[in-house]
């Protein structure tokens, strides 16, 4: 009789301990994924800062050759300011898409100024910006991969129970909002 009771208690205690261990593992995996998302966001940030640092330099160089293209230059500066001030992922991705777009029109504009195109300083800045641009794309790819894993974990069973208990929210993807990038490419001669 006494032995039977002890066995039952032991089994129940064992099941409870097992459940605690499983939920601890799950909780930890969610936290570690969330940290990975944060860290990968930081990686994008590092690349964005590098670009912010280059833009004033670039604008000054272009201004030296193309003083009256003020409108385009101002757009670049404003987009940069928006990016620096951005607080949320959504704002940030919008601002970044704008910077990429304005930089593109700046480069297109340089086609009209042969002296500018031949400037060594300008060429080096272009090369650096291209490198950073592709790094941003890779960083965004990694960030989105991490967001996908995090969101999947907290939206599927049993992670969704934890998410509701501890208030984990799905993260936003870093999206390309640019109309040009989505729509078909227009070619005009």
């Amino acid at each position, binding site marked *: 009789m006494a032995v039977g009771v002890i066995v039952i208690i032991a089994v129940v205690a064992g099941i409870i301990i097992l459940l605690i261990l499983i939920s601890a593992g799950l909780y930890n995996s969610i936290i570690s994924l969330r940290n990975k998302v944060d860290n990968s966001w930081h990686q994008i940030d590092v690349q964005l800062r590098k670009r912010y640092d280059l833009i004033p330099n670039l604008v000054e160089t272009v201004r030296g050759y193309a003083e009256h293209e003020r409108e385009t230059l101002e757009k670049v500066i404003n987009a940069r300011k928006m990016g620096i001030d951005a607080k949320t992922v959504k704002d940030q991705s919008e601002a970044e898409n704008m910077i990429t777009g304005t930089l593109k029109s700046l480069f297109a504009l340089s086609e009209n100024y042969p002296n500018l195109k031949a400037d060594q300083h300008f060429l080096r800045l272009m090369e650096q910006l291209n490198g950073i641009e592709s790094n941003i794309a890779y960083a965004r790819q*990694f960030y989105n991969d991490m967001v996908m894993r995090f969101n999947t974990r907290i939206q599927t069973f049993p992670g969704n129970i934890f998410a509701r208990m501890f208030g984990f929210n799905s993260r936003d993807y870093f999206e390309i909002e640019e109309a040009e990038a989505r729509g078909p490419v227009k070619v005009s001669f």
Partner: protein
Amino acid sequence: MYEHISKNRAKTVFIIIGFVIFITMVGFALGFYLDYRYGMSSNYSILFMVFALIIAIIMSFSSYYYSDKIVLGITGAKPVSREENPRIYYMVEGLSIAAGLPMPGIYMIEDNGMNAFATGRNPEHGVIVFTRGLLDNLNDQELGGVISHELSHIKNYDILLGAIIVVLVGMIAIISNIILRSFIFGGGRRRTSRSSGGGILSIIFLVLGLALLILSPIIATIIRMAISRNREFLADSTGAMISRYPAGLANALKKISQHSQVKTASNATAHLFIENPFGSKAKAAFSNIFSTHPPVEERIKRLERMSLGVGI
């Protein structure tokens, strides 16, 4: 993938333990031999065993920390600066961001053959080595495929296992070679100086010598077993996830397989490379089962299936 990482860790520990046991046994055998020659009263066997155990443990620790440097040394790889080759720096930087890894060191082997490998004890100390031929002959997309493949080896901890195997197993091969030779010479001298006595012991030594002789091919088999050709397939597919362009690596492998010979590669380091450094032709001569690399045609076929033929 996480399963693969923990498997790699287990194999690394297994190989280190095997190494320590082997060296300790060698120490014991050596002491036992000296005991036999100079009388049993001197406890050389225990002394040598303890001594060998300490040495083996020190060697294991130092192989963990220095195996990557030894690998770089014996393959003749030299560091490349950003100024010398900005292209490779830009590409590795971008792809390591995509893989979520710290920027690895970049080294180069002065060889016209096209090949590459990764080494290091963990991602923080990762190194990717390219041959000059590879950097000169591949376009950006193909090079991106190769870099992603090597970054996957870093991510999967294949690099630690690979480097430890080079050092520890290579060391066992050298030691067993020395012992075998000393037994042959020692045995000859003994027979002339002492005409009688120790019939059973001399048989034991003969058996031990034969066992060591058999050991070399066994070591080679251990390398091949531990490495498992699957890891190349796994690195190919993980790499395609990083570059998002499987066709890049497929096209690179097509080029590399035409001319993959690296002069500084040896049997000890062959398993590290992205493609057999003795050339794909050399592989055909051996049985496929024992080669360290899966057939390149099979790898290309799998990559093509991933990319649905786009870009090939």
